[in-house]
């Protein structure tokens, strides 16, 4: 690390609280990553309602009352890896619900479609990255498409707790 520790702390805007609650090593580790907080579309894409009796509790509809955008480090490899796992339809639907859709194609374009245009492909990946990992739902609720069960989101954390009769 070429930066001096003081400069490094200032540039990363580390609060006094962080310095107090974690050891120095922890602070440095925290600085190495950009700050983000949770319930983003990537996790939403994996989320399904597991209430007893619900056959198709996917995808959960997002009703957001507060949305934030935080920057996050781009990793092309990871996005390519996740493209194989994503339910693209559910992703596009979620993008619309949080107003994050930026002219994404209806279907996942194959790598070959871009041919030698590396930049174009990276542009596409960056768009996906933005929607997947930078848009955060802070407040609102999720709704199961089948049962209509609502899961509240508070402080970016969806409450997926079930009642005993729903297990």
């Amino acid at each position, binding site marked *: 690390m070429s930066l001096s520790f003081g400069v490094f702390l200032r540039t990363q805007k580390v609060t006094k609280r*962080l310095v107090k*609650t*974690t*050891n120095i090593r*922890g602070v440095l*580790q*925290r600085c*190495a*990553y950009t*700050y*983000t*907080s*949770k*319930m*983003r579309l*990537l*996790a939403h894409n*994996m*989320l*399904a*309602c*597991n209430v007893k009796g619900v056959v198709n509790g*996917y995808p959960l509809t997002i009703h957001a009352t507060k949305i934030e955008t935080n920057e996050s480090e781009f*990793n092309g*490899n*990871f996005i390519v*890896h*996740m493209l194989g*796992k994503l*339910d693209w339809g559910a992703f596009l639907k979620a993008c619309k619900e949080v107003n994050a859709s930026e002219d994404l194609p209806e279907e996942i374009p194959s790598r070959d479609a871009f041919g030698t245009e590396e930049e174009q492909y990276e542009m596409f990946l960056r768009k996906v990255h933005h929607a997947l990992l930078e848009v955060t739902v802070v407040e609102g609720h999720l709704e199961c498409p089948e049962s209509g069960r609502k899961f509240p989101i508070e*402080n*970016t*954390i*969806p*409450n*997926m*707790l*079930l009642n*005993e009769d*729903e*297990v």
Partner: protein
Amino acid sequence: MSRPELTAPAEYFYDAAEAKKYTASSRVIEIQERLTERALELLNFPRDDVPRFLLDVGCGSGLSGDRLTELGHHWVGVDISRGMLNHAVEREVEGDVFESDIGHGVPFRPGVFDGCVSISAIQWLCNADKSEHDPRKRLKAFFSQTYRCLKRGAKCAFQFYPENARQAEMIASSALRVGFSGGLVVDYPNSTRAKKYFLVLAAGPPDSMPTAKTDEANDYANAKQDVVGRGGGKNKFKHNNNNNSEFGLGVKKKRKGDKHARTIYVGSKSHPEGKGKAWVMKKKKQMRNRGVQVANDSKYTGRKRKERF
């Protein structure tokens, strides 16, 4: 050592104050980091620099998640304690966290995770904090839904603190019952403090079991692993069987599916002619040696009775 499991349910025990205390302790941080590293080692991903998508069960304030992020993976966490999760958000961890009771299963669609880790969490499933709670049902719900949301062939490494051997066995067998393969890896089995239980499971066909770390040198290669699984028990049984048939006492058979696993003799069927004079003489000698009174040997010993009619 006190067990928090015995004091209060997880969602009440880990309140805001406890979460802060827990996360600020450098000792806890260090242990959590080391356990996470070991768990990831047990998952044994190929070294191809592709960030994996992992599930962190009982992520708490994200101490284990921090380590996963540092090691270049992406994670999603579930925990029942709101206090811990709020603290995780406050600390601005990298993964997405959900408030969910793992005893009710995990709310994810099938086949999405490349692996699953859990640090010091799944022993909580064995608690019955509410009247509706049945540890076996909770374990089943957790393992079956975890199995479902993993990619085929994906591995799990659950570090946990069993209260006793029976609890460890119960957790391991619940996992095997829903289709996982694998077993327990016990690190440093001879040390009281460093001893750590890892339940290593594969959702689908297993490649190989990882090796447990021990204090001893490498020449104890065979004694390295402490695996409690189904395979071990079966082999033992086979071995016993061989011993019995070598013994000249007729064939011992174990009935399949017998609850009490009684041993029954089927000598009369395999020896419709009787066991012969030699066998009778041998038995008589054995009894004599034990000091039991037996009839004197004669030319009639071991002979069949005449058929009367």
